[in-house]
């Protein structure tokens, strides 16, 4: 006697299930308990075993079909028996096959769905989330030709359920036909829609997020490491800059000499200070302080590819003019991108000048394992009391960042004081 087997109801919310896989085909013999078919709800996969021994007389649905609960799935019985009486209404084999085709075949290339395909890849290309789609979600995606790049799955293990896709499909902004074509054609993505009911128009398209360059990535990593591995703090002070300005004026007046600028002079003074306070001309590596007798000065350099820090080796052996020439040479190479890697490493102390851009105070970030970096700020007028009168002097701001792991506040401040003294006596330090 033929026995029909129907789709059980797995839970109150389950109204239909998807035929995932037939393990037994029409005409095959099965014994009681053998799995005939796997079906899926949105939540889980279930196996339907044979309730009795017998031959599979008929399977009513193809894989991929969506079948309401309590609908006959297949019929067991003795070979030759008719199963026609158990055929569910509206489940003609042809129709079932058609449904299956939709879910199994590759979707047509023309995009039917009026949704942003944020990826410029062809509509049928597998999406990032494809692997995590539930079968019903896959079916929905195929039927609606909807392949968003990423959808948060609410199923077990982040599995994307049909419900997730459906929600995404109906909430995503509609995109005008032209905008869609341009998105498929170029490297543009949808921005906030400004058209009817928030429709994304061609004017709303924006350039996609771009990956940062290799050099930028390197800067990013070094900056993160700097903050993560040190105990940075910054001291700010200022020095009378009238000597600097006088010297600079002298340089300008005497044509033919190297064009030594304010920054060169401050660098020169800092080198002199480091020779006097060698505690800051050190590196802190693996809990050890490595002292350096030579001063190798790194200087922050703004290039089209981002920040670079060329290094002037043995800077303490150079005159102000030689220092200026070397800095200019290295800057030129860095800007052109022609600088050697050797010239970008090995500094024992670093300077960063934002004063030329009008910055009055900032917090330079350490370049570990160095323990100090000096920020050079803009020259500003500053009131000072002299003989009971208020006078204005030109004053240059200095921002010294130190690693508190090895340099305490007082020694740091003492060093900064020395730098200030050098700057204020720069005219006697170097001759033009």
């Amino acid at each position, binding site marked *: 006697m033929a026995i029909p087997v129907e789709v059980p109801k797995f839970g109150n919310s389950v109204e239909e299930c998807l035929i995932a896989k037939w393990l037994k085909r029409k005409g095959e013999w099965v014994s009681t308990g053998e799995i005939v078919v796997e079906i899926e709800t949105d939540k889980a996969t279930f196996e339907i075993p044979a309730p009795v021994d017998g031959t599979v007389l008929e399977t009513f649905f193809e894989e991929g079909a969506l079948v309401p609960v309590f609908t006959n799935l297949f019929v067991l019985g003795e070979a030759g028996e008719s199963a026609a009486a158990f055929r569910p209404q509206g489940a003609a084999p042809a129709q079932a096959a058609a449904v299956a085709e939709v879910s199994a075949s590759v979707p047509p290339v023309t995009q039917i769905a009026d949704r942003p395909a944020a990826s410029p890849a062809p509509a049928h290309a597998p999406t990032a989330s494809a692997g995590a789609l539930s079968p019903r979600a896959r079916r929905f995606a195929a039927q609606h030709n909807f392949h968003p790049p990423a959808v948060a799955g609410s199923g077990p293990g982040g599995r994307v359920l049909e419900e997730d896709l459906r929600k995404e499909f109906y909430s995503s902004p509609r995109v005008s*036909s*032209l*905008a869609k*074509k341009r998105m498929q054609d170029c490297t543009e993505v949808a921005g906030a829609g400004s*058209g009817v009911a928030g429709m994304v*128009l*061609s004017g709303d398209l924006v350039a996609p997020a771009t990956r940062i360059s290799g050099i930028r990535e390197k800067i990013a990593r070094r900056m993160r490491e700097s903050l993560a591995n040190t105990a940075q703090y910054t001291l700010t002070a200022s020095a009378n800059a009238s000597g600097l300005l006088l010297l600079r004026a002298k340089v300008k007046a005497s044509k033919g000499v190297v064009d030594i600028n304010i920054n060169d002079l401050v660098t020169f003074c800092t080198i002199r200070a480091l020779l006097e306070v060698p505690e800051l001309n050190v590196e802190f590596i693996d809990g050890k302080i490595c002292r350096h007798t030579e001063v190798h000065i790194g200087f922050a350099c703004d290039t089209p590819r981002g920040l670079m820090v060329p290094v002037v080796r043995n800077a303490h052996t150079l005159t102000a003019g030689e220092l200026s020439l070397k800095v200019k040479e290295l800057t030129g190479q860095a800007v052109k991108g022609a600088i050697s890697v050797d010239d970008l490493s090995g500094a024992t102390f670093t300077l960063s000048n934002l004063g030329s851009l009008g910055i009055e105070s900032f917090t330079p970030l350490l370049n570990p394992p160095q323990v100090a970096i000096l920020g050079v700020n803009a020259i500003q007028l500053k009131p000072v009391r002299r003989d009971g009168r208020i006078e204005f002097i030109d004053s240059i701001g200095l921002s010294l960042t130190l690693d508190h792991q090895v340099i305490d506040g007082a020694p740091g401040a003492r060093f900064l004081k020395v730098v200030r003294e050098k700057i204020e006596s720069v005219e006697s330090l170097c001759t033009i």
Partner: protein
Amino acid sequence: MYDLIVIGACPGGYEAAAHAARMGKRVALIERGCLGGTCLNVGCIPAKTFLRSSKLFHECGQAASYGVRLGSIEFDMPAVVARKNRVVDTLTKGVEGMLKRTGVESITGHARLIARNAVQVGAERYEAANILLATGSRPAKPPIPGLASEGVLDSDTVFALTRVPERVVIIGGGVIGLEFACFFSEIGSKVIVFEMLPNIAAGSDLEISSRLLHIMKRAGIEFNLSAKVLGIDGNTIRYAASGGSESSVSADCILNATGRSPVVDGLGLEEVGVDFSPKGVKTSDLGKTNVAGVWACGDVTGRRMLAHAATREGIVAVNNMFGKKDRIRYQGIPSVIYTHPEVSSVGKTEEEIKALGIEYKKSVVPMAVAGRFLVEHDGGTGMVKVLAGARFGEILGVHAIGDASSEFIVAAAAMVETEMCVSDASEIVYPHPTVSEALREAILGVH
């Protein structure tokens, strides 16, 4: 304290007031003249009732070709004016009813801004969180000697005509001038149009306006293009023709149709610091002026000078003032010239597309491809032109000349507004037989 005071009951103002009131806001609408503004009282609606009568009169002359024989026909100007008044009256009452239903308080009088949140009307002072300027426009009076004299009619005063003039001179070949040229020509007047520019209907697609010019000339209207009107003396108008030679012509009716100027005077705009020029109050796409809480819509902004644009601008302003993000988009706003045949268009003209350097494809089909057009317009002429981007086929502009085009141009407007491409638009089904099928054919013709 109101949430919104609207100054001016034009289609921009009253629709905005009703929209805000429907949102539950306390709204006052101040109007010094009649409800409905220019559009209802001395613009779109009166002009169209006149044109309906002139068209019927003209068609009666052609009735025989449809197999209808008539006796003698006569154009009864006073009756036409009376009908116009009835139509205006009905529509004005409709506006009044809508304002009442939605709970908008109507205030009659001349409003003047005295602060960014207060207006003075007579002795009364009213305050509101938002003020929407919708004061509209008035006929422009360019500095032509004699133009301001009483004998010269404009689009405000022309509707009081009691008889059919023999000879009409119209200064201006823009929308207003052309519509009146059509009207007077159809009722039997000899019409002479003077236009400063080399083309009529400035801003229209040249291929379409050239066709209109040809049709109107064939109907007996005389055009003096690239002509400069030098002065008006009584019934005589002196002008310099395109070649520069000076001449004069007389007429028993002279109509100034040189355009419209925004009404920006007497509103207290200077005192409150609202940024404006004789060309209008400056507004953003949200409807904001430079003064917080002061908004503007319609002709007073000098932006599109179309009643339906004003309505949309007003609603955009109201939405933004009460927290619903909205933005005016002009690309999909259609415009119509109600000549016979009428000219309807939306989107960019071919000249604009060329100037922008956009690669495009075009398709032009005669209106007669639609069977219904032939049925309705014996001997009628017209065409539909579709302009689409060369690469993606997006519909950039649709321009039509031919009667009934005004009734289906909105379909093209929806296509332009939603950036539909030819491939999508081709899937739209048109009722058969209708004149709109010409649009379908034109779209299918874009390759």
